[in-house]
């Protein structure tokens, strides 16, 4: 526990010394948010109905994109530690082997929460409003955290196994685009049949719908369980392969 804390402090220092990583991660989703709100927002309003706040509507999708690009840096940090021999150094020391891995996981959670806070702030400026109560906000935070954890375990795998820095981060590109093929920006029912089937059955849709419902004080229905199942399921599978990869790291 103590060594996890010390190593977490080390990695957070890395992030604070290169704040550009947080800015870079936040900037693309923010640009996409601006585009959707100002370029497509008008058209969307006329099709979704005047009572829909489109900033609210698209925010969950933008948050998922930010997390998907944020965890690429988790993989890059792990790759760096592996290639620079830091894992060997730590793993030949009298500290718990798992603390090195958990320090990376906690850092990933913390860094992504900072990015998310930043995006909420920008959304607020653009007109995001929510009257959600404390419980709903806690649920929103919980789901975002769980989603980040799931993708963090996914990121650990290329972080440990990749042969190059680019290889370590390339896995995140398809994840970043997942929200586009979901109900994040337009309702899935407006899509062609095949795409719609994909959109309705991929994790981003259930997570986006749940977050949107929570923020807009609407009933979440069964969707929240589907969203949680996705997060827990991805976490469990990725965790299994991540631990297997970590056992093989010298």
């Amino acid at each position, binding site marked *: 526990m103590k*060594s996890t804390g*010390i*190593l977490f402090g*080390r990695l957070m*220092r*890395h992030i604070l*010394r*290169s704040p550009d990583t947080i800015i870079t991660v936040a900037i693309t989703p923010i640009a996409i948010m601006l585009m959707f709100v100002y370029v497509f927002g008008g058209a969307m309003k006329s099709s979704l109905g005047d009572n829909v706040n489109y900033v609210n509507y698209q925010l969950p999708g933008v948050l998922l994109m930010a997390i998907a690009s944020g965890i690429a840096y988790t993989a890059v940090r792990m790759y760096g530690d592996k290639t*620079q*021999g*830091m894992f*060997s*150094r*730590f*793993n*030949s*020391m*009298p*500290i718990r082997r798992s603390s090195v891995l958990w320090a990376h996981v906690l850092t990933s959670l913390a860094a992504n929460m900072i990015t998310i806070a930043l995006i909420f702030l920008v959304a607020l400026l653009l007109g995001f409003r929510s009257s959600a109560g404390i419980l709903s906000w806690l649920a929103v935070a919980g789901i975002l955290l769980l989603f980040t954890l799931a993708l963090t375990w996914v990121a650990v795998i290329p972080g440990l196994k990749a042969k190059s820095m680019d290889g370590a981060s390339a896995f995140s590109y398809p994840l970043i685009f997942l929200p586009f093929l979901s109900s994040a920006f337009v309702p899935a029912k407006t899509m062609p049949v095949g795409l719609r089937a994909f959109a309705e059955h991929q994790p981003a849709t259930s997570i986006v719908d749940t977050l949107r419902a929570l923020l807009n004080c609407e009933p979440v229905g069964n969707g929240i369980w589907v969203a949680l199942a996705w997060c827990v399921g991805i976490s469990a599978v990725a965790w299994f392969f991540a631990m297997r990869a970590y056992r093989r790291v*010298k």
Partner: protein
Amino acid sequence: MMENAISVKGLTKSFKDVEVLKGVDFEVRRGEIFALLGSNGAGKTTTVNILATLLRQSGGVASVCGFDVEKQPDEVRKSISMTGQFAAVDGILTGRENLILIARLRGVENPAKLADDLLDQFSLTDAANKRAATYSGGMARRLDIAMSLVGAPKVIFLDEPTTGLDPEGRQEVWKTIKALAKGGTTIMLTTQYLEEAEQLAGRIAILHDGRIIANGTLAELKKLFPPAKVEYVEKQPSLEEIFLAIIGQKESA
């Protein structure tokens, strides 16, 4: 039994079909500098990684300070420290922060003071607050070795500590290693250079084709070599001496 800091018997290691170690035996006494000599791919790093609990052996037994590396890795880790083949320093942290990090992880009292002492001992005080990424190869290696001394481990593994260093950097590292051994630490180092083993080690073992083919003091080993080879080896340091002499003249001029 406790006379030996390291004891290796019948050690084997295969990666898939490739048999890298085919039965390695050697012992290292307490307080000794022991050099494992071998060419590229001989299995030096593999041997050291097994002893440092980073890699599992395929067969045989190995113990460090009386603890079995396979069955008691935690005890082994408390007794050792490992400096890998490539300097493992955190480039984003400063030299001082790197040392404090390791000191805190090892639960040393007063990490800041220890860091300052080590920086001083390794002539890194001027660069203490610069990021390690800006260090020269020699400085990074010195920091790397300094980090391995934190917590005063009984046994230190140094995997090719001077590879990639210029002759001056090499001299500095040699000086450090000699000073360490004087303090009673057991040192096992690997090297590709006979002259390095000659400079530092009390005992030298040659790893070739997965086995130790020679093991003894320098004088004992010299008897094994045909005279022609000895001559060839003896020429190398002289080249180095010339190089150093030229550098020395430049600096004093």
